């Protein structure tokens, strides 16, 4: 009864109620998804009955469907806000931010999870309310560091601010720049940083530091749109769509949402795939006429049809668009391909692989898109980014095909106890969402729903493991680019078809799985916060350093993990005493005879001045990754402080800056 009443409120085009369980199913992107003619007739027949069954009780249920989740979200928001007020960030230990989060925070997450589970299975819940649950989840998980920290989180974000600062001052980039070679790639793919400079200057800021902290919140919020587009393109059951988004944000622990080009590149990647799936999807047809030996497309289509047979799906594929619309949408895709190729090194290859997988599987009509993207990417690399590519060609070629080196994972034996738990949580979360994805795909298949596009997209990034190690991060990035599609497949485990009921058991399973994923996410996403968080004192020390050090100075860090490089970066040379290029014997020398070891680096006469900075976050990183035994950096610091060869020029409770005692006062 309630179901029919609801149906009466919706036009048959905008929303439909499934026959068996009254589940609302939504049309495709353009609102003109087509079911079978019989289905439409049934809908119309039921519409005639609907008005007679619109009782007050149904109205109460409809109001309750808004009020109950609304109340839960209000309470959750209040609990989360109160949790933020009492955070003692200095107490973060090796288990990450969870070690200081108060019970109110977990109450907030519990409320939003329970409410989402209830609302998703309630056919009367409006879609905007489901969206609000996703937004609250993002706010609670990804927004907490952004809003609770009074400084910019993560050392690489500071370095990215440094590139924006360079563009602000010089009005250009220098692809051949030699200062801090690690950052030279940014001068060859400068799109994100140019955008950062635009936001900074047009927004009236002195530095991107003033807004960069909000990047995780911003990127996760805007990612909702393309993710929704992807899920909506091929899935009509709205429960599955929203659960796919929910699972995505419960499993996105990789942390590539900070102020970085990859976050913007990922957004565009999602958009390219979303638009392609929504408006350029196709599927193999039954009668294919192979035009000859070289008619590859027809052969491909015939192959897939023979393999999969006539496919059923719970949605109308490839929302029909007029030629003008298709032209406009294709122009948008081409623009996005160009922008992606110019802002990040890795993302273009992920786009090529994803579009290539769709083309090979005969899932898109625009099958030359991967070729176009390959041409655009090659053009950019050969003409605009050759300064970087040419200079790094040797190791790029050497790492090609080195599966053993590219697919390395962190050795747990080298981590602190808390970090072992964090690493295991990340692996467990990855495994869980992967298993859910496989199980969901199998279950959907058994229900006759063949999510071939999502399956191909989920495995599309895998070949990258043969191509490059990406500084040891390639396995994480593969997971990151597969996740949107794995999440849709995982959601299919609970909702294999629009006809599948949303029983209480399904709700319980949804909440249970969400709790498991959340537990993994909180440990994995927040697990490095002891080193990612910088205290205001550390930032003050870093600002003092760059305000004091004259151009052509050497800045020595005991480790790279401190607020650095964010201003005038090309004027300095930055080195670390424990970086990746440092050998084991050098580390031993540093531990055994710190004064001699540090002085050897600091006394280089080619620099105008040399500075050593030791901060709390550096010590945290060195301990967490067991680069040196716990307490060693304190011993090194004490040895230097007691040595006559060094003098302290700045000190607070979290940072010390020293120079050689023999160094003359130099004015900046």
């Amino acid at each position, binding site marked *: 009864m309630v179901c029919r009443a609801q149906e009466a409120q919706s036009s048959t085009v905008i929303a439909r109620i499934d026959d068996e369980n009254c589940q609302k199913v939504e049309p*495709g*992107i*353009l*609102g*003109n998804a087509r079911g079978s003619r019989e289905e439409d007739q049934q809908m119309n027949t039921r519409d005639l009955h609907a008005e007679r069954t619109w009782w007050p009780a149904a109205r109460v249920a409809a109001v309750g469907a808004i009020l109950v989740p609304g109340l839960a979200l209000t309470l959750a928001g209040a609990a989360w806000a109160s949790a933020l007020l009492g955070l003692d960030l200095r107490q973060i230990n090796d288990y990450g931010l969870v070690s200081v989060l108060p019970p109110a925070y977990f109450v907030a997450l519990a409320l939003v999870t329970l409410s989402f589970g209830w609302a998703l299975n309630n056919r009367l819940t409006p879609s905007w309310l489901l969206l609000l649950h996703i937004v609250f989840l993002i706010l609670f998980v990804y927004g907490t560091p952004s809003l609770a920290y009074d400084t910019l989180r993560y050392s690489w974000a500071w370095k990215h601010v440094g590139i924006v600062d360079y*563009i602000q001052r010089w*009005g*250009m*980039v220098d692809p051949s720049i030699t200062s801090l070679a690690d950052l030279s790639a940014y001068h060859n793919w*400068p*799109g*994100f*940083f*140019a*955008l950062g*400079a*635009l*936001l*900074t*200057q*047009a*927004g*009236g*800021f002195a530095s991107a530091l003033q*807004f960069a902290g909000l990047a995780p919140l911003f990127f996760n919020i*805007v990612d909702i*749109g*393309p993710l*929704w*587009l992807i899920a*909506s393109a091929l899935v009509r059951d709205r429960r599955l769509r929203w659960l796919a988004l929910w699972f995505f944000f419960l499993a996105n622990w990789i942390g590539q949402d900070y102020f970085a080009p990859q976050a*913007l590149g990922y*957004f*565009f990647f999602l*958009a390219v795939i*979303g*638009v392609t799936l*929504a408006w350029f999807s196709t599927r193999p047809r039954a009668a294919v006429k192979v035009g000859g030996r070289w008619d590859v497309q027809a052969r491909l289509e015939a192959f897939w049809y023979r393999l999969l047979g006539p496919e059923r799906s719970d949605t109308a594929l490839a929302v029909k668009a007029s030629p*003008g*619309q298709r032209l*406009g*949408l294709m122009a*948008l895709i081409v*623009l*996005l391909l*160009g*922008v992606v190729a*110019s*802002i990040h090194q890795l993302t273009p290859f992920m786009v090529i692989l994803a579009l290539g997988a769709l083309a090979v599987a005969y899932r898109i009509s625009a099958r030359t898109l991967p070729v176009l993207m390959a041409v655009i990417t090659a053009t950019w690399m050969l003409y*605009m980014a050759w300064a970087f590519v040419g200079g790094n060609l040797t190791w790029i070629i050497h790492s090609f095909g080195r599966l053993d080196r590219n697919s390395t994972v962190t050795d747990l034996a080298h981590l602190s106890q808390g970090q072992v738990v964090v690493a295991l949580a990340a692996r467990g979360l990855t495994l869980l969402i992967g298993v859910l994805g496989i199980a969901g795909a199998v279950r959907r298949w058994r229900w006759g729903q063949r999510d071939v596009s999502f399956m191909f997209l989920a495995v599309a990034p895998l070949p990258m493991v043969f191509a490059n190690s990406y500084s040891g991060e390639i396995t994480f990035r593969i997971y990151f680019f597969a996740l949107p599609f794995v999440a849709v497949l995982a959601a299919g485990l609970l909702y294999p078809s629009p006809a599948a009921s949303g029983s209480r058991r399904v709700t319980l399973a949804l909440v249970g799985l969400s709790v498991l994923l959340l537990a993994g996410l909180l440990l994995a996403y927040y697990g490095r916060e002891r080193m990612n968080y910088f205290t205001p004192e550390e930032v003050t020390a870093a600002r003092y350093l760059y305000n004091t050090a004259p151009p052509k100075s050497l800045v020595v860090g005991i480790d790279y993990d401190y607020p650095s490089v964010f201003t005038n970066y090309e004027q300095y040379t930055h080195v670390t005493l424990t970086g990746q290029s440092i050998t084991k014997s050098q580390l031993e020398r540093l531990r055994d005879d710190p004064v001699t070891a540090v002085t050897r680096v600091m006394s280089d006469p080619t620099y105008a001045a040399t500075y050593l900075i030791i901060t709390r976050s550096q010590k945290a990183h060195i301990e967490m990754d067991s680069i040196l035994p716990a307490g060693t950096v304190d011993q090194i610091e004490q040895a230097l402080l007691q040595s006559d060869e060094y003098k302290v020029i700045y000190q607070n409770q979290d940072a010390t800056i020293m120079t050689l005692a023999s160094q003359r006062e130099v004015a900046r």
Partner: protein
Amino acid sequence: MRRLNWPAVLVILLALIADLSIVADFGQPWRPLLVFAFLVIGPGLPLVRLLRLSQPGAVLTLAVVLSLALDTAVAEGLVMTRLWSAGAALAILIIVAVAGAGADLLASSRRESRGLLQ
């Protein structure tokens, strides 16, 4: 009576207010709020509306996507050609937005005229 094309009008207003916030230096938080709001939605919305997609969620999503893509392309183009100026980048994007909104207004007006004639 003709219906007002609110999205196009709003984009034009947003573009003007964003520009005004810089010229008159509204200060924080108004200036960044207005400028960011324009940059996130302004350049793309009128162009996406020209496609006449019927699903509002898709229109909004593509508007943000196109806006950020245009912002990035314009800013990057100026940096790569060593013509960088935040003011010039913003001016180009405002022109794109206002021209797009104008085209959208024209298109909707023509559609209405055709509808009235029929």
